[in-house]
Every structure is written in C-alpha cells, then in structure tokens.
C-alpha cells in the first residue's frame, strides 16, 4: 500500500466509524420534526410532537424528578469521588489499598443489574431491621451517587496524577498551612476536573434506567424509566421530541464546558509562564 492510499484508507475508516456513531442520533432529531404518527414514515415537517411533549404531564414530572436526582447525586458523587481520588493517588501504600481500588472500579464495570440488585437487597435488609429507608427518592439517589462516585474518582485521579506536586511543596515552603495549600493551590487546579466530573455524573444519573428501576418505589418514575416503558411497547414520536431536546442541551453543555476548561487551562499556563519569566529576571 502506498502512503497516499494508506492515508485515504485511514480517513475512510474514521469517517465510517463517526457515521455509525452519529447516524442514530441524527435520525432521531430529523424524525422528531415529522408530523406523522408513524415514527419512521416521513410526511411533512411540524412541531406537533413538541406540542404533545408540553402536554405530557407524566413525562414532564419525570424530567423534573430526574433533574433533581441528577443534581443532588452529582454533588455527592464529586464529593466522595474526590476523596477516593486523593486516597488512591496521594497514598501509594496503605493497607487495603487494592481493596479500595477494586471496590471503586466495581460499579464502573459490574453489570447494572447486579449493582441494582445488590443495593436493593441491602436496603431491604436495613429496612427490615430499622424500619427505614422507604424505596423512593433517597434510595435512587444512593444508587446514582455510588455509580457517580466511581466515575468521578477516575476523572479526578487522572487530573491529580498529572498535577505538579512541586506547587504544593512551594506553597508550603512559603509558609502556607495545609488547609491553605488545599484552598489556594490544589483546589483551584482541580476545578476543571471537578466541573467535568460533575457534568459526567449528572449525565450518568440523568440517563440511568436499570438502577432506578430496582431502587425506585411507587410514585417515583424518572425520565429514563418513563421512556423505557414506552420504548418497550413500541415506537413513540414524543420520545423523538424529548430526545432532541436532551441532545441539544447536552451538546451545548459539553461544548461550553470544554471551551471553559481549555480557557482555564490556557489562563493557568499564561500565569505560570509569567511567573517563571518574573523569577528569571
């Protein structure tokens, strides 16, 4: 193979994979503007299903519940995920480190049905014993927070690993107290990672159907649970409309946050270059 055909092959392969990844998303969006009740047969463009969406009180209350759960569970996830990341990256050796690192990756890879079942059986045992918690908002939150912690720990650890430990040392040399070092040096450097961990865990929670189904009680249907039960029955044009709204919001958020993080990163690099040039004067 000559170099040129090689390059052409590489380009073709990549375009094909991207097409495979984006084809379903694009079809979802296009057919959300289809007037026909038949999801897959195009009649003409209209906003009919967006109108139907506004009237769909089941779906709207499910969306609100999902947003609430996603927000709270993402906060909890980032909190515990940051601790996990610190424990695993800053302490190379302590008894039980392997256990902690395997426990923290378990929710990442273990099939959802097992995580859901095990959490539920534990919560039921506790309830049997203490009389609470009832299945509902709290139990879903706990499940999502567990899943999110595992992901947040990965995001924060990768940032901590590439962070320059000498900055902390320098701050200490200059007389900072440990908590000051954390507040003035470590935390500001971590902010981009914390933001992306929050967004990732928020999305995961907003998307989860299996854990929620196991952990939810009567009257607590999250958005994915409603969508899943409708999708099981067949195709439904309101799902296309709700998908388009979600995709738009998520895309804007992801693009905006990546601009934000690269902006922070550039600013930090500039400041560092400035500091070095000052020091060399």
């Amino acid at each position, binding site marked *: 193979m000559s170099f040129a055909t090689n390059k052409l092959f590489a380009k073709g392969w990549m375009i094909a994979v991207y097409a495979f990844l984006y084809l379903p*998303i694009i079809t979802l969006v296009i057919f959300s503007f289809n007037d026909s009740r038949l999801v897959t047969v195009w009649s003409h463009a209209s906003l009919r299903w967006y109108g139907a969406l506004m009237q769909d009180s089941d779906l709207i209350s499910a969306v609100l519940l999902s947003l609430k759960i996603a927000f709270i569970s993402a906060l909890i996830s980032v909190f515990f995920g940051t601790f996990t990341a610190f424990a695993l990256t800053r302490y190379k050796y302590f008894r039980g480190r392997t256990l902690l690192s395997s426990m923290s990756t378990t929710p990442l890879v273990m099939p959802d049905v097992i995580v859901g079942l095990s959490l539920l059986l534990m919560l039921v045992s506790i309830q049997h014993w203490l009389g609470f918690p009832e299945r509902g908002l709290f139990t879903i939150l706990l499940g999502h927070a567990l899943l999110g912690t595992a992901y947040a*720990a990965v995001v924060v650890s990768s940032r901590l690993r590439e962070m320059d430990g000498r900055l902390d040392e320098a701050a200490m040399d200059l007389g900072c107290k440990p908590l000051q070092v954390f507040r003035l040096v470590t935390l500001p450097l971590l902010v981009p990672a914390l933001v992306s961990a929050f967004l990732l865990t928020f999305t995961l929670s907003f998307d989860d159907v299996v854990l929620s189904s196991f952990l939810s009680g009567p009257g607590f249907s999250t958005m994915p649970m409603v969508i899943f039960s409708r999708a099981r029955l067949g195709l439904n044009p309101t799902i296309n409309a709700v998908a388009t709204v979600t995709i738009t919001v998520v895309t804007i958020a992801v693009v905006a946050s990546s601009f934000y993080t690269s902006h922070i990163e550039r600013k930090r690099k500039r400041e560092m270059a400035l500091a070095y040039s000052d020091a060399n004067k």
Partner: protein
Amino acid sequence: MHKLTSYFKNLFQGNKLVIGIPYSWFIMLVLIPLLIVLKISLSEMEATSVSSMISWSQGWPTLKLNFANYQFIFSDALYVKTYLSSIKYALITTILCLAIGYPFAYFMARSPKHLQPMLLMLIMLPFWTSFLLRIYAWKTLLVNNGVINNVLISLGVIHAPLAMMNNSFSLLIGMVYSYLPFMILPLYANLSKLDLRYLEAAADLGTSPFKAFWLITVPLSKAGIIAGSMLVFIPAVGEFVIPELLGGPDTLMIGRVLWDEFFSNNDWPMAAAVAVVMILLILMPMAMLNKAEAEQEAGGKA
C-alpha cells in the same frame, strides 16, 4: 515528596479521614451489598420475605444453607444455555469492537496533533447523550417499516423489508454501538503514547511497516487491548437494556433472566443466585482489567 505526604497527613486531621471516608462509602455500598446477595442466594423465598439463614433450636443457633437455587441453575438447561449465550454475545461484541476500534484508535493517534482533541470529543459526545435514547434510535432504524428499510425500498434496492430487528443482528449492532467508545478510549490513550522511534528503528533495520505493526505496535499496546476488551466484555455479559429493546426471543441474555426473576417472578433468592453465578463468570476478566489498568498507569509514567 516527604513534605507532600506530611501535608496530606495534616490535611483533615490526618490521612485517616482521607482514606476512611471513601473506604466506608464503598464498603457500605459495594462490599456489604454483594455479601448480602451471596447470603440471600443461599436462602429461599417464603410467602412474603426471604427465609432467615439462622434458625434457633433449643437455644442454639443453627445455620441453614440452601443450595437449591444453585442446583436449579446448573440442572436447568435453559439457565446454562442463557449463560453460554450471554458469553457468546459479549465475546462477539468485544471482537467486533476491537476490530473496528483498534484501527480507529491507531489512525486517531496518528492524525495531526491539533485535530486530536476534537476527534476525541466527537467520540465522547454520543457517550454523553442518553444511552437509552440512542438504543431507541436504532429501533426506529432497524424495524421492518423502519428508516433503513424504507430508504432501501424507495431506492429500489430491495423489494421486501430486511428482517434486521429482534434478532442477533440488531442485538449486536446495539451492543457494538454502545460499547465502542469504551474500547476506543483506552486504546487511544495507549497508542498515543507509543514511542515512534521504535518503529523508525525497525524501518531502519529493514522491517516492512506491516511486520513492524504486528511485531512492535500490537505487543506494546497489549495493556490497552486488554483494558478495552474487558471494559466491553464485562458489562456486556450482564447487559439488560439492549437485549430488552433490540433483542428477540432467541437472543438469550442472562441480564434479562435476572430482571424477570426479580420483577416478574418475585423470586429474590433465585435472582441473587443468578447474580452470584454471573459475578463468578466475570471475576477473572475483572482481575485481568485491574492488572491491565495498573500496567497502563505505569506505562504512562515511564
């Protein structure tokens, strides 16, 4: 470095809290629940609740272990067949993801440096948009009167709709589609760190690019291949949503059986036993994943 450790020791009154908080969190929500699953799998379902393991006779506790659930799983042909079929589909998914993802990650690592962040974001973006909605999207594409069939018929390529839905084809499309990013990301992380001087040296010594690829690039990316494959294989074995929405009556998957035991039959001990056997199946792949990830990490530092 010593100073740094002492700083973290002082932070939050010592390292006990920094390690203790995540430790108790995961013990409470991962370890104990899994032990409870094991315990319940060894009991039986009574009228309203699970039988208790310890019974009291003449003032002495006796441990009552019930292996009936496990006996049933291994004697019933359908369970065994379902486990084997789950492994089969997970394996095919892993191989397909590797076949599609490896060249992709390789080409991505070789593309111009300034384009790479954008290419990476384009891989991540579908991952951020709802998994459930993307699976639903495949349903609208693949059904008999779906988008693909409609387009092909109106173009005159086919006259009768292709049966692409509720069979192993639709199941595998959905699985490969959902798990492909999990394969690409660790492979890309690994391949982008590959020291190109090895390949130059091989070329200088007269090795053909093809041979150099098999003798140098592939062995050096072994940790990435294992990590990616396990990240796909392990969750794929227990997948529930994809077989439920895209699979058919013939595509047996154990995640669905567990779900039905729990939600339809209300047999919690049986569901727990199904889960325990599934965990045993994925223990070895999980150990391989941990090892590969440790190697990836170590490779990143070298």
